[in-house]
């Protein structure tokens, strides 16, 4: 199918139209959701999607009719499937028209058609003689590009100025101080905006209608968008309230699916997904065994490796657009740290026995000085054990949250850099900090798990190792 599509000029044109419309439709839908109402963006996106699916089905229906597969049972079957799909599509279109705003839906539906017209026009223009005359000369081309840029600039400014006056929502707060509102939404649309780091409380706390609960600032995510789109639906409120849980469960689900797919059909000589997953697992296994020791290590690799992969995925999840890092909330990190705390104490009880655990807590007194110091050592050890989960959770939370806040602050700075023309574009200032965020996410996941493995190591029986050095100590463990 694809090979023929590349050779066939018309199909290639359609594919390019599809790509352009997808990108354009996505961007316009996002802008509509941000600057107007989220529902409008949703409707526009649905319209574009409907139109694209329609085009695809048309292509599916027409290609077998006129291609080499004409008349064969295979071709007839394809046409039938496409026609059936179109039936469903029209039903879905009727439902969408009843549910969402028809204007946005229709304009979304028109977008691919507009793209086709513009693309065809540019094709004609590119072939024409006048265009060749402009482009082939360097100075003339530069001058033309400059003129085009200036005209676009002013036209866009005039357009957005005119557009933002009548619409009561969708006002880009102009020329205020950088920390202040980038986008001051009207009612309802409340939290579905890039809320800046500082002053967001004042910027978004204005919605008159519902006195919504304190929402922490950050990039808007898909659940906040949904909650903004359906402000009166119970399920949206539920989702918004348990947003962090939903995201962390989603990540767990993704990891489960990946693990399942990778191990579903194990090959002796792995390839693809299985290869990648095996590489990760082997790397983590070697890493933790090198910390804990070859005798005791393998027992703890599943727990520690899971912890690492889960935390890393949660940290990185916030960098995906419309997603949110669950670890940027203290609830999740405290839960993780408490799990580690309980697990480490359990290991201590199991490995050392209750008396051995008490001995460990007393600082392992073996002589008179040790017994004299034991009453002091006990509270110190208990405090130390209790401090571990606090420091683990606060470190992870602070780092990831701070990272996200940094990105938000720079993103809002980038948005407020072009306030004078009221253009809904910004400079992606925060792109510079993405590498930093990636590094920090990986590092914090590693620090969390390495500290956990060291806590486990401290709980394992290890008194007699010191004089033998590392290798002997590892041998001695049983």
């Amino acid at each position, binding site marked *: 199918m694809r090979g023929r599509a590349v050779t066939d000029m018309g199909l290639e044109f359609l594919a390019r139209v599809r790509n352009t419309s997808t990108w354009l439709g996505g961007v316009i839908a996002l802008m509509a959701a941000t600057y107007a109402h989220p529902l409008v963006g949703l409707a526009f996106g649905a319209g574009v999607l409907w139109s694209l699916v329609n085009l695809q089905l048309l292509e599916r229906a027409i290609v077998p009719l006129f291609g080499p597969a004409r008349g064969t049972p295979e071709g007839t079957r394809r046409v039938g499937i496409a026609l059936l799909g179109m039936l469903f599509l029209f039903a879905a279109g009727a439902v969408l028209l009843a549910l969402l705003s028809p204007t946005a839906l229709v304009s979304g539906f028109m977008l691919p058609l507009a793209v086709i017209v513009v693309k065809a026009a540019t094709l004609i223009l590119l072939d024409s003689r006048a265009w060749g005359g402009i482009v082939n000369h360097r100075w003339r081309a530069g001058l033309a590009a400059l003129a085009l840029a200036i005209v676009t600039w002013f036209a866009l400014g005039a357009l957005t100025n005119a557009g933002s006056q009548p619409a009561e929502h969708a006002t880009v707060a102009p020329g205020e101080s950088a920390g202040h509102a980038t986008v001051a939404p009207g009612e309802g649309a409340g939290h579905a905006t890039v809320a800046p780091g500082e002053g967001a409380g004042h910027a978004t706390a204005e919605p008159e209608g519902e006195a919504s609960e*304190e929402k922490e600032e950050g990039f808007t995510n898909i659940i906040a968008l949904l909650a903004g789109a359906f402000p009166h639906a119970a399920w949206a409120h539920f989702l918004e309230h348990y947003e962090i849980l939903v995201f962390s469960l989603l990540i767990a689900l993704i990891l489960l699916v990946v693990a399942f797919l990778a191990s579903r059909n194990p090959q002796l000589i792995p390839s693809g997904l299985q290869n990648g997953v095996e590489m990760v697992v082997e790397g983590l296994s070697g890493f933790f065994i090198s910390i804990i020791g070859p005798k005791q290590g393998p027992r703890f690799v599943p727990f520690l490796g899971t912890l690492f992969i889960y935390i890393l995925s949660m940290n990185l999840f916030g960098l995906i657009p419309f997603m949110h890092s669950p670890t940027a909330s203290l609830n999740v990190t405290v839960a993780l740290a408490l799990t580690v705390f309980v697990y480490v104490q359990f290991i201590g009880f199991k490995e050392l026995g209750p008396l051995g655990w008490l001995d460990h807590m007393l600082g392992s007194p073996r002589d008179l000085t040790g017994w004299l110091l034991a009453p002091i050592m006990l509270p110190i050890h208990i405090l130390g054990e209790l401090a571990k989960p606090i420091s683990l959770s606060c*470190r992870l939370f*602070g*780092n990831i*949250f*701070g990272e996200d806040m940094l990105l938000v602050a720079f993103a809002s700075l980038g948005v407020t850099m072009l306030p004078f023309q009221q253009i809904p574009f910004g400079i992606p200032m925060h792109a510079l900090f993405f590498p930093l965020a990636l590094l920090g996410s990986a*590092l914090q996941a590693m*620090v969390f798990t390495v500290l956990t493995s*060291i806590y486990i190591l401290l709980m394992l029986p290890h008194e007699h190792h010191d004089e033998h050095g590392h290798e002997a100590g590892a041998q001695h463990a049983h």
Partner: protein
Amino acid sequence: MDLHAALSLGLPLGIGVAAIGSGIGLGLIGQGAMQAIGRQPEATAKIQLAMIIIAALAEALTIYAFVTMFLLKGKI
């Protein structure tokens, strides 16, 4: 000076002061690790691991100040 003024003055300053301490600590850690790696390049992996752990411990102090700021920010 009321509570608001004190908080809005003190919170950023507190983070700054904590960052100074952490910065000095991180610098010393990095210096020590670099020297150790320079002396014994074959132990790079072990040194790096220990360095990252200790760096995380040192950095955590600033993070505590940061978390404290966010806990108290609502009172401004």
